[in-house]
């Protein structure tokens, strides 16, 4: 098979599974890089799992090389070590870098503007391209996993697989720390932040005074400017004060660098106050205009 990976620099162990790395055809001129590892148990009988990281714009090779893949990269950036809890111990796992423009995926015309539905369509085409390369796997039970913004990628692709013409033995989907609703993600973060001790009484009282009425609070799209400003202060504490927003009780690796791609992700996550995110990014704390009383 042209895409089979037969040796990898830095691999000092002999894998007991096969692996392929190459390109799947999405829309005309769009090519998604895939990396496929067979199950270490029974590739014929074990399920096939598609893994998608989110972003939007981040690579599923993070899932492979840092999360659930069969091997990870040592800190020296040169040698590999085996992952004892690899998900390909019991499943065939396919990692796809999506959409085009992410990681090693590309578009002939170098045009990378896209949207949720187009990504789902491209992922569906890429999946059919995968099954054309590996027809034996059409019988295996099939699952789709998405993480983070993959909380939108996974269900939208799942709907195409479940209702599309392609014969795929689709059984279900899973979402890890997914974005499923902007409103609920915003609303819940304020409670999460306060009850994890990030805000203190002044800000919590001001949030309640300005965002709540008759016992119901709206931290997502309040019409009150005071409420919006206080919510932005709260988000600033979560995302701009030096905490590790991915894991509250872990240090922030590599200091407080910020990736514009990441910040845009936050803007996607917090659509309504996203335009202020840039201001927050360059300020150390609450914008000067806000008095916390």
């Amino acid at each position, binding site marked *: 098979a042209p895409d089979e990976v037969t040796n990898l620099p830095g691999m000092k162990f002999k894998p007991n599974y096969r692996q392929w790395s190459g390109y799947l055809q999405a829309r005309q001129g769009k090519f998604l890089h895939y990396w496929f590892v067979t199950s270490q148990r029974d590739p014929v009988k074990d399920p096939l799992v598609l893994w998608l990281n989110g972003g939007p714009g981040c690579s599923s090779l993070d899932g492979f090389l840092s999360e659930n893949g069969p091997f990870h990269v040592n800190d*020296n950036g*040169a040698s590999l070590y085996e992952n004892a809890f690899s998900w390909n111990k019991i499943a065939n796992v396919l990692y796809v870098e999506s959409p085009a423009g992410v990681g090693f995926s590309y578009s002939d015309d170098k045009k990378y503007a896209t949207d949720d539905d187009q990504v789902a369509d491209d992922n569906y085409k890429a999946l059919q391209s995968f099954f054309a390369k590996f027809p034996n796997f059409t019988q295996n039970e099939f699952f789709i996993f998405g*993480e983070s913004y993959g909380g939108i990628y996974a269900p939208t692709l799942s709907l195409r697989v479940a209702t599309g013409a392609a014969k795929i033995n689709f059984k279900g989907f899973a979402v890890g720390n997914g974005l499923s609703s902007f409103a609920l993600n915003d609303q819940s973060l304020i409670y999460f932040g306060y009850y994890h001790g990030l805000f203190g009484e002044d800000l919590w009282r001001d949030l309640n005074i300005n965002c709540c009425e008759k016992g119901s609070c709206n931290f997502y799209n309040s019409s009150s400017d005071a409420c919006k400003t206080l919510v932005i202060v709260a988000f600033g504490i979560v995302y701009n004060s030096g905490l590790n927003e991915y894991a509250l009780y872990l240090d922030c690796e590599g200091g407080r660098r910020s990736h514009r791609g990441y910040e845009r992700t936050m803007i996607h996550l917090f659509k309504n106050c996203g335009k202020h995110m840039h201001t927050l990014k360059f300020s150390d704390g609450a914008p000067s205009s806000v008095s916390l009383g």
Partner: protein
Amino acid sequence: EVPPCINSTAQMNWLNRGDVRKALHIPATLPPWDLCSDDVGEQYTTLYSTVKDVYLKLISLGLRALVYNGDTDMACNFLGDQWFVEDLGLEATTKYQTWIHDDQIAGFYQQFGNITFLTVKGAGHMVPQWAPGPAFHMFQSFITNGYY
């Protein structure tokens, strides 16, 4: 550059070695690998402010679903996804209860027919990275439709 607090230097250095790219059949003409793409993120259009209707269609087609959250993550916190699953309006078929891994409480879960909401205690955004054992257990239970 990488997202804040995430150090992907090692993968980046390995993936951008010429012999690794050759072994992975990556065209030499492509730019270096990065964890996230500005090109894509900058021009991306979000169409779904919620995927509630998509979930309801998928559940009605008899598919199985798992919504899991590392409970120390703040980018997509567990409470928001718990409220999302509860807001689907499906009847709960189990109580909200603990699940055990290696004789320790690994988190909590509740099932609503074919959809399960599950937390992984102490894990962040990338659950398999920060709780590999419980994540594997959860994965195995889901794909075999077994007990958590």
